[in-house]
């Protein structure tokens, strides 16, 4: 992507992307971009990197809360189902024992809790990440396929209020980014 183009000739821009060689360089660049005031950006690494999400200002996620709610829902649902079957829908007198024999329901209650909580963990994580997603602009960058192999990328998005093509690409170069490219939307 060349910068000699006139602004009005440019296609819509998703952001500016810089490439790094190591995770440490990327984390440092993210921290500096964050302290320079950029907020709408994302970092890409072929593996989880400690402190990377925190460096771009993303500190907490709600996966654990969802899983907790899923687990409670599963446990209550499982226990309630058994209670309803044995007491209401199909009461069965076995040697005069109480219909509400709750200790016997614990194993199934536990399994239902794990089942619903586990499914919530996967599907919540995918939903919050917006996956499955068939198209995303970052894949327009030729080199970006190495983000899943051995390269590390920082993309400052054009929706950031501070974003402007010239200064932002210059800023990314100052951070030590090897290849700085514009990402077509």
């Amino acid at each position, binding site marked *: 992507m060349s910068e000699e183009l006139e602004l009005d000739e440019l296609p819509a821009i998703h952001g500016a992307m810089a490439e790094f060689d190591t995770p440490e360089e990327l984390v440092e660049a993210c921290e500096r971009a964050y302290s320079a005031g950029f907020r709408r950006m994302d970092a890409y690494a072929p593996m989880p990197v400690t402190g990377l999400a925190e460096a771009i200002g993303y500190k907490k996620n709600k996966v654990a809360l969802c899983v907790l709610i899923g687990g409670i829902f599963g446990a209550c649902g499982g226990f309630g189902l058994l209670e309803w079957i044995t007491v209401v829908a199909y009461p069965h007198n076995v040697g005069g024992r109480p219909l509400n024999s709750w200790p016997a329901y614990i194993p199934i209650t536990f399994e239902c809790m794990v089942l619903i909580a586990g499914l919530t963990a996967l599907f919540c994580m995918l939903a919050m*990440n917006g996956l499955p997603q068939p*198209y995303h602009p970052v894949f327009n960058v030729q080199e970006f396929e190495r983000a899943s192999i051995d390269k590390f990328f920082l993309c400052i998005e054009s929706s950031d209020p501070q974003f402007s093509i010239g200064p932002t690409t210059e800023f990314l170069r100052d951070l030590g980014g090897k290849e700085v490219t514009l990402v077509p939307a």
Partner: protein
Amino acid sequence: MATLENLDNKELIDPGPDKILGTGHDYETVTDRIAGIVYLPWKKSPRKWLVGAFISFVFVNLLMLAMWVLFAKGIGVWGVNIPIGWGFAIVNFVWWIGIGHAGTLISAILFLLKQDWRTSINRFSEAMTLFAVACAGMFPVLHLGRPWLAYWLFPYPNSMWLWPQPRSPLEWDVFAVSTYGTISLVFWYCGLIPDFASMRDNAPHLWQRKIYGILGLGWRNSAIHWHRYQKAYLLLAGLATPLVLSVHTVVSFDFAISIIPGWHTTIFPPYFVAGAIYSGFAMVLTLIIPLRAWYNMRDLITLRHIDAAAKLMLGTGLIVAYGYAMEAFFSWYGGDKYESFMYWNRMTGPYGFSYALLITCNIALPQALWSRRVRHNIVLVWIISIIVNCGMWLERFVIVVTSLHRDFLPSSWGIYIPTKWDWATFTGTLGFFLFLIFLFVRLLPSISIFEVREVVHHDRYMERAYEEKL
């Protein structure tokens, strides 16, 4: 782009018992090495893979034949009859489900305990879990007599307004095994998503990129995504850990909650769980030792993995030995004459040979693993792992058959002799399991690529820290 030249047949060297990764790897080489196995053209598959896949496929067909005969003629084709109503079907069910447990142990419990050596074998063991649960799940359904009514096991609104009995351990089993299968699949797929993305980006052919692209769901390695991903993975590991313990506990309740002498004991849950992990590690070693040789993965699955798995096998084997000892002790010390008769009969009765073999395979021979020389001799470890697999199968045979064949009244005593269809079903599921394993190593990354990248990163970090200290 993956280069197949990286996979030429030069012998890769095992870095020894201290390292989980061979030297000279970087982020790219681990990707190419692991994904390269999948990209290898079918014509270039190792000959041993082709032979193995073919033989196991023959047994898949045997399984289908055995099922057809069973459905056509009924459960009488098996050797089961009163008093031994639970024959091979339940023996194999418990054996298979136990084998699955090491997979969850490796992927979940060792993850929570931060055991870094789990990294290169967790994907493979999770696949093993999944396929073993698939084999296990078949047996109770085939044993139903009318397998086409298997959905009656689940509570669903029906026109008869009948509901299953949730106070029965057999019903708990339905929930435990189906939950276990589902969560194992979720855990496995969750781990595969980033690797599918890697393969989407470096597969040599467009059609491969399309398939892995669909499976990868558009994963783009975003830091924010990784953040949620790690949390979800950690929680799944936290959920799978009590789940794996609960599943074999519930399986042991199938026995322990009855009043049959030999089954009705409180030691069953912990001793079943330990036995399950024991047999699972044996199966991991049985499979991974040949595969790492065939696919030249000695630098990714090293002596460190084999040594650690052998130690865990030894440890869980000792817990199982303690279980046997306590079972024998309490049948004598408890003073119940049916119980003590049962145990004496188990050791000296018509099935005494199976008990002797069980002690030999499960307790006596694996003690060789105390020696470091044995643990570092890969062929010996492989042989011991097969012996343990046989031993654990015998354990389930001893528990199921010897406890049932001498009923309370001598007039209802009997002998169980498995028929050819029993053997056909059992060996058929073995073939089915191995066939799925063969397909798995060929179609999916059998080692977690992104986790090995983390190992590369960690090794570099340690090297730098060491140099700075100098």
